[in-house]
């Protein structure tokens, strides 16, 4: 009896999100359409309470719950906090967009909260079973959210593609897990590591299982050669959902990559390093080169995501604590940048108009100098121009890869980053040196303007003072992976 109480206290943030998601589903039935905004307030409160519980139950040591299925370590706490705060920002950005398009319903908030629950479970998964359940919970919510705009043929097509390919990827991940289970006799991450370390033999079945696991992870990240779904889903989904898909789930994907590869299969590091190297180099090349040809902003950001994932993999494949910490820094920077980028698209959109083409940004400086300035910081950060956070993130990741001895890959990545700067700077050129195509007023609620400003300024401020965030990442990784 006592142990279940301790377990329940450990999962307090998850319990909050779960019970509130169900409460919102029910409460929505009894609300008049004019009071619907209450659902939004409830959802935001849920996230802040979950954040509070995450902080209040934080201990700098590793703790387990539910017979070792669930782990509560600093890495999980930090990532959960980021996920919750990122989702809260997303809710602020998307409120008006959803209201104007008739998608401002209780189910939207309930599904997003369920997906947050899935991400939190993934982040804390200490057993392959828990990780898989969290992943399915997240994916199922995302599939249905993409199709939320039911009468839009493009959204439905994107949802269908995402669903079919996602199911395939889940299958691959599960198949890989089953082989690892067959070889080690355990589902527990730590135990798998121990068994592999002791037996110290490499047999082809393990490698085959590893290949399937890496392929499944790569799909969830959107790394080449498993990137086909990314552009279509980014473009087809409603922008608010694209923002969700592009941002916080990457934190959860990063977490399960750390759990499976760095904690569970670390005796096979040399093998997965090679696989990640291939994917990293290809992702950076294809992502950056294809993005140049895009005229749709959402599609361009999709290819930009692919290249960012490539950089993230550089940190992971260096196989050192330093590398993991720099990867974690990169993914947090990426989430902030993505939120700001899509936040700007949402701000420029209005009823019946989607600001999703590059031309829609033309002359933004004349329409709203402040918005143009925020977008400028975001684009500079994505391109990796100092002194923004994007520069520091790329720098640390490549430094870690260099220390691990991947000299040529790093040189190639730097070249490709220079190529990538072209399409980010093209947006800056469109905003500042071209005449505007339209002069509609930019109308956004005050809270959205405020949060978006803080978000973009944070990209600059964290770039100037990256030490705190870097230290948090370093400590979290160091304390969780002994």
């Amino acid at each position, binding site marked *: 009896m006592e142990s279940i109480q301790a377990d329940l206290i450990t999962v307090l943030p998850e319990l909050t999100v*779960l019970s509130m998601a*169900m409460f919102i*589903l029910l409460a929505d039935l009894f609300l008049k359409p004019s009071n619907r905004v209450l659902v939004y307030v409830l959802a935001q409160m849920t996230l802040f309470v979950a954040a509070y519980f995450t902080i209040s139950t934080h201990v700098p040591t590793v703790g387990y*719950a*539910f*017979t070792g*299925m*669930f782990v509560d370590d600093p890495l999980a706490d930090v990532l959960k906090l980021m996920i919750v705060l990122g989702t809260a920002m997303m809710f602020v950005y998307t409120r008006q967009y959803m209201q104007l398009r008739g998608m401002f*319903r209780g*189910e939207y908030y*309930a*599904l997003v909260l*369920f997906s947050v*629950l899935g991400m939190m*479970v993934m982040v804390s998964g200490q*057993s392959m*079973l*828990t990780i898989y*359940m*969290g992943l*399915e*919970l997240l994916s*199922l*919510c995302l*599939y*249905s959210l993409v*199709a*939320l705009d*039911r009468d839009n043929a493009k959204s439905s097509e994107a949802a269908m593609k995402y669903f079919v390919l996602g199911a395939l990827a889940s299958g691959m991940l599960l198949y890989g897990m089953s082989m690892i289970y*067959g*070889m080690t006799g355990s589902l527990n991450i730590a135990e798998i590591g121990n068994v592999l370390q002791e037996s110290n033999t490499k*047999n*082809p*079945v393990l490698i*085959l299982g590893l290949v399937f696991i890496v392929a499944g992870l790569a799909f969830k990240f959107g790394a080449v050669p498993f990137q086909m779904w990314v552009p279509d889903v980014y473009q087809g989904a409603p922008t608010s959902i694209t923002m969700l898909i592009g941002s916080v789930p990457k934190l959860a994907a990063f977490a399960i990559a750390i759990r499976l590869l760095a904690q569970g299969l670390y005796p096979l590091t040399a093998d997965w390093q090679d696989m990640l190297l291939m994917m990293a180099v290809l992702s950076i090349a294809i992502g950056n080169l294809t993005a140049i040809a895009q005229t749709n902003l959402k599609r361009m950001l999709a290819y930009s995501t692919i290249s960012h994932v490539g950089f993230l993999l550089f940190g992971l494949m260096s196989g050192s604590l330093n590398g993991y910490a720099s990867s974690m820094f990169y993914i947090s920077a990426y989430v902030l940048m993505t939120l700001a980028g899509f936040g700007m698209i949402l701000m420029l959109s209005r009823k019946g108009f989607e600001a999703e083409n590059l031309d829609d940004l033309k002359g933004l400086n004349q329409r709203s100098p402040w918005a143009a300035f925020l977008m400028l910081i975001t684009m500079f950060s994505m391109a990796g121009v100092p002194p923004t956070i994007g520069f520091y993130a790329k720098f640390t990741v490549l430094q870690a890869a260099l220390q691990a001895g991947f000299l040529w890959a790093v040189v190639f990545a730097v070249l490709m980053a220079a190529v990538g700067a072209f399409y980010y700077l093209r947006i800056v050129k469109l905003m500042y040196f071209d005449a505007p195509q339209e002069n509609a007023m930019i109308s956004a609620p005050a809270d959205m303007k405020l949060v978006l400003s803080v978000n973009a300024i944070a990209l600059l401020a964290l770039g100037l003072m990256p030490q705190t965030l870097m230290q948090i990442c370093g400590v979290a990784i160091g304390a969780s992976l002994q």
Partner: protein
Amino acid sequence: MIFTDIIFYTLATILLFAAIRVITTRNPVVAALHLVLAFFTAAGIWLLLEAEFLAIALVLVYVGAVMVLFLFVVMMLDINLDKLREGFWDYLPMAGIIGLLMAVEMVMVLGGKFFISAKMPPKPADYSNTAELGRVLYSDYLLPFELASVVLLVAIVAAIVLTLRDRKESKSMNAADQVLVKKADRLRIISMPSEQMPAEPISTRSAEQTNELVNKHVNKETK
């Protein structure tokens, strides 16, 4: 031992036959029925392995619920299988080569030497794997079990979100919406120049011509 061998091979043959029929038959209803047969024989094989609970669950869940629903769907949809099979022969060589390669690779990796386990000691006769499953499900695997229930809840919510909509032919009225209607919602006033008279005045035609035209028109209509 020989008795269980006979049962196993009989069941396995039926299973393989049913599985092949599922993908080769032209009639979707027949295919679904063969899938039911495949599940049933698979359940029999599981019984041989002393996994009673799984065997019963397979019959109850898959045969009893899933496949019956599936049959309904197949019977209600008008699927043209010939259209689905279009291009089958064009893709066959490529698909065959890839499939064969994958099969060979899998056999090379998984073949024989890694998956030989020591023979499990036989369980006593009163051993119940249902009770055993229940015990671990609600103790060791409590968290994944509860998470599975959340996944199912999300599946229900998602399905309703995506399909529930007001019926188009529904004649029910929303009084609040009706009161809120403005003139502009219903009536559109457009300004346009007045219509010109036809260039050729009708009076130039003779009375007979006009009569003829009218008759022609009337005839056409009556036809």
